[in-house]
C-alpha cells in the first residue's frame, strides 16, 4: 500500500486539496450571496433549461373538477387529500406519479399512472396518450419532493391546461390513513 501511495505523493495531494479548499472559501466570501439561495433542488431537465422559458399558466380551476383550493395566479393549482379523494371517487382526474418506476412499484396512489419526470422517453410516450379533457394531478413522495411540480410544469409547457399538483404526495396520502397500491398495472 505504501508503494502505491508514497509519502510525497500524499503530501502533494493534500497540498492541492488545501489550495482548492482555500480557493473555494475565498470564492464564497467574495461572491457574497449564498449559493443556497440560487440552488432550489430543481432537477435539470437535460434538453433545455425550461425554468427560464416556463409559460405562465393561465389555469382557472374548473368548478366541475371540484378542485377549489387553487393557488393564486401564476402558481400551480394545488389540491388537498380530501379534494383528491373526492375527485378520484368521481373519476374526474388522471393521477400521475412523477417518481421513478422502482418507487412507483413500491407503493403508489390508487389508479395512478407512472410518469417518471426523470425518464424523458417514458414521459414523452405517456404524454401523447394522456387525456386532454381530464384534470391531470401530479404527485411524488411528499412535500419535500419536487418531481411532481416539475412534471406539472412540463405538462403545461406541452399544452395541457388542466394540470394540478397534489403536494402531499404518497406521504400525505398515507398520513391521512389511505393505503398505497403496489405494482398496479398502469398500461392502460
Amino acid at each position, binding site marked *: 500500500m505504501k508503494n502505491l501511495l508514497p509519502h510525497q*505523493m500524499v503530501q*502533494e495531494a493534500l497540498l492541492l486539496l488545501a489550495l482548492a479548499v482555500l480557493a*473555494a472559501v475565498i470564492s464564497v466570501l467574495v461572491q457574497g450571496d449564498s*449559493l*443556497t439561495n440560487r440552488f432550489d433542488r430543481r432537477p*435539470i431537465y*437535460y434538453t433545455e433549461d425550461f425554468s427560464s422559458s416556463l409559460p405562465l399558466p393561465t389555469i382557472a380551476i374548473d368548478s366541475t373538477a371540484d378542485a377549489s383550493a387553487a393557488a393564486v395566479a401564476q402558481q400551480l393549482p394545488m389540491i388537498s387529500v380530501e379534494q383528491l379523494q373526492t375527485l378520484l371517487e368521481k373519476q374526474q382526474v388522471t393521477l400521475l406519479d412523477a417518481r421513478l418506476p422502482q418507487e412507483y412499484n413500491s407503493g403508489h396512489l390508487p389508479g395512478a399512472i407512472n410518469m417518471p419526470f426523470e425518464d424523458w422517453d417514458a414521459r414523452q410516450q405517456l404524454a401523447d396518450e394522456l387525456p386532454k379533457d381530464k384534470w391531470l394531478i401530479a404527485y411524488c413522495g411528499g412535500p419535500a419532493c419536487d418531481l411532481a411540480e416539475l412534471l406539472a410544469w412540463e405538462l403545461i409547457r406541452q399544452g395541457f391546461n388542466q394540470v394540478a399538483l397534489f403536494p402531499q404526495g404518497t406521504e400525505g396520502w398515507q398520513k391521512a390513513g389511505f393505503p398505497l397500491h403496489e405494482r398496479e398495472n398502469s398500461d392502460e
Partner: protein
Amino acid sequence: MNRHKPWVETAVRWILALVFFFAGVPKIADPGTFAQAIDNYRLLPYFAVIAMAIFLPWLEVILGLALASGRLRRGTALLTALLYLMFLVAIGSAVMRGLDIDCGCFGTGHRVDLWRIAEDVLLLAGAVWLYCRALSDHPKPENSQAN
C-alpha cells in the same frame, strides 16, 4: 517504464488539463446550476451537495493548472485518477438507476449516458497512466538508492 518519449506524457497532461479547465470554469461561474446537477444524482445530502458544488470546480481548475505546469505531478496524478474514478462511479450509478439527467460535466447540456461513461473511462485511463508514471519516477527507498 520510463523509456518513452516525454511528449506523450506532456500531451496526456495537457489533454487532462484542458478538460479540467473546460469543466471547472463554467461551474465556478454558476455554482447553483452545478449544485443542481450534483443533486440530480441523488447520492448526496443537501449539505454535501452545496460543499461539493463550491469545492469541486476549484479542485478541477487547480488540478488543470498543476497538470499544465507539471508542478506537484505526483499528487496531481493521484487526485486526477481519484477524481475521474469518482465521476465514473457517479455517472455509472446514474445510468444503472435509469436516471435521465444532465451529467454536470461541462456546464449543462450533456446527458448522462454510455458515451459519458466511455469518455470518462478514457480520461481515467490517462490519469491512471500518469499515476503509474509518477509512481515509477518516485525515488525508491534506501536499498534501491545504493546503486
